């Protein structure tokens, strides 16, 4: 910093004012530096403070629920006499299950789309497709919910029924009961919702594959697919993982779409085609909060705290995985 200041001092023309040729007094960049440093570190501190405030609020409002006795919790109707932990666990399970299924569907699809855009499609088409994917990211989740409810649901219903009758020996597919308001359709809607962010991230990573790696691979006689397997995919692995984690973060916290398409239940099982088995934390809060008061509201906020921690842990895990695999990234 000190060197920059002396640099500007020596320069006869001020970049800021432009009119003066020689300027005495304090260095012109000084105020700007100071202000910018203040702004950026202020923003940095603000985000930490905000996060702290949210966590503090959740904790403060959740404490009555955490410290409540069993008898007090019995009075909260929607808990059906469960303890806080046994109420939260099925919710957490439902949240993770729907998000994981969504990832299983969305990540391979995203990799395919990203590869097509970065390596297969003609440039003009690729650009248009890229915009289209980004546009998908801008659609509000309530619209996805409506779409899932009135478009997807009647169309996947027969498919689910077929799966259930023909592959019902596989327990997760057994016992389908229409209408399709199960965790499978919720996951499908989630998959569509997280597709854009995953695709956009992966595409950016694939585009950064060093040209030399690709050309070297092709020069060794690799086909295009072999080149992608040898050069692009290993290079993009950490990018794929972090993209998936970004998508997972969105899927974990998604509320409206899940609320609208899922008939909730509080069970822990893998019957993905049955209605009324699972529920996600966020959708449950949105569903119950309007009619909740007193301790009931505190319980819901406690589940919100749990989701906060869960998301935090997932993000930490993602960081850890990415750092561990840093040797694969293009930074070396």
């Amino acid at each position, binding site marked *: 910093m000190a060197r920059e200041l002396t640099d500007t001092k020596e320069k006869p023309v001020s970049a800021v004012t432009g009119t003066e040729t020689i300027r005495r007094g304090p260095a012109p960049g000084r105020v700007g530096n100071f202000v910018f440093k203040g702004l950026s570190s202020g923003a940095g501190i603000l985000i930490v403070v905000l996060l702290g405030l949210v966590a503090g609020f959740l904790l403060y409002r959740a404490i009555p629920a955490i410290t409540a006795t069993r008898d007090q919790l019995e009075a909260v109707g929607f808990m059906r006499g469960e303890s806080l932990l046994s109420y939260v666990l099925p919710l957490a399970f439902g949240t993770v299950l729907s998000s994981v299924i969504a990832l299983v569907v969305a990540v391979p699809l995203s990799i395919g789309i990203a590869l097509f855009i970065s390596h297969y499609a003609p440039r003009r088409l690729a650009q248009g497709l890229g915009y289209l994917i980004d546009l998908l990211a801008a659609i509000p989740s309530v619209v996805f919910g409506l779409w899932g*409810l*009135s478009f997807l649901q009647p169309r996947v219903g027969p498919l689910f029924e077929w799966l259930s009758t023909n592959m019902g020996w596989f327990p997760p597919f057994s016992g389908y009961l229409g*209408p399709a308001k199960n965790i499978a359709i919720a996951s499908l809607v989630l998959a569509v919702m997280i597709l854009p962010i995953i695709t956009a991230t992966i595409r950016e990573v694939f585009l950064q594959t060093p040209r030399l790696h690709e050309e070297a691979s092709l020069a060794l006689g690799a086909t295009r697919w072999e080149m992608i397997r040898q050069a692009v995919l290993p290079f993009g692995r950490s990018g794929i993982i972090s993209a998936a984690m970004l998508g997972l973060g969105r899927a974990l916290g998604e509320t409206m779409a899940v609320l609208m398409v899922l*008939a909730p239940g*509080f069970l822990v099982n893998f019957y993905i085609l*049955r209605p009324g088995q699972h529920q996600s934390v966020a959708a449950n809060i949105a569903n119950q909060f309007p*009619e*909740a008061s007193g301790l009931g509201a505190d319980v819901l906020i406690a589940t919100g705290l749990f989701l906060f921690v869960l998301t935090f842990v997932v993000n930490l895990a993602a960081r850890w995985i990415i750092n561990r695999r840093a040797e694969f990234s293009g930074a070396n």
Partner: protein
Amino acid sequence: MKLARTRPAKTAALALLGAVALTLTACGPGSVDDGGTTGGDDENTSEEGGAELSGTLAGSGASSQENAQNGWMAGFTEANPGVTVSYDPTGSGTGREQFLNGSVLFAGSDAAFDEEELGMASERCLDGEALELPLYISPIAVIYNLPGVEAEHINLTPQALAGIFAGEITTWNDPAIAEANPDIELPEITVVPVNRSDDSGTTENFTEYLSAVAGDVWTHGPIETWPIPGTVSGAQTSGMIDTVSSQEGAIGYADASRAGDLGTAAIGVGEEFVPYSAEAAAAIVDASPATEDATDKRLTIELARDTTESGTYPIVLISYLIACDTYENEADATNVAAYLSYIASPEGQDRAAEPDVAGSAPISEDLRTRVLAAIDSISAAS
């Protein structure tokens, strides 16, 4: 008095001047201010005329009242353009909470205050009492999706209805349903009972009915949260309607005003089957006694769901309007009283009863007299 009488004309002239000044944007701010201040003075001095009310009147609460409230707000503001009324359909619990912490002036709630809330209500009403007025009476329809059945209503006995929602009756041509419908050929498809996924006053009312009339079949009692796991459900009334509409053979329960094109069941009362109607719903409210802790201001009702009286429709949602008998300032007290009086008036009740507003059941003359007496007690703390 003479001076006061001449004032409205003068105000109107000044207001017009102000308006002209505003549209032309030629005058200085001084003249506009003059018009405004005079208008304000006038509204404070003469409050007998209903058209002179002004201010804002915020309410929140039960979503069941949303359509009716929209109708009432429109009707009330036609007559009192100076008052801005709002109603936020946040749900009964939130509505009561917001009323108690003073963030809204009135609330709508499907359930009456419990004992603890009554204590808080007295504090919120400046040591006065809360008013609980059953001004929204709405039949809950049992809706079903059977496109093949052409009959206007399917007859369901209380036992059959309870059996369906308890999961004991699983096909539409079950003898329990078929016996009550000798003229209808019922299809052999699965009955899909649909319930509300959120805690709901509608669910509570419906299960209260089931346990009152068929307690041996519906053993879960009156309950806000659906007690049976693994059922198909929908969030809020719209979710319920969507879910029933999307599945052939589905059956659910919802505010009758929202039933739309879906079939509605005629419910067994005594020896006959009664389809929902405003008259039949109002009839059962009149046939029901008041609750034990009801007062002249809190007109809470104990519904006689197991009535056998002819022409009564037993599945009814009563939603209360909640207000204070004492407000901090005169304007709030006057506005709340005026709004509630409008809602209780035949005009207001008929407006809500229109099928495209809320399809509710207008209250009886007797109930209106008691409600208006309670509203008369609303005043400002001096």
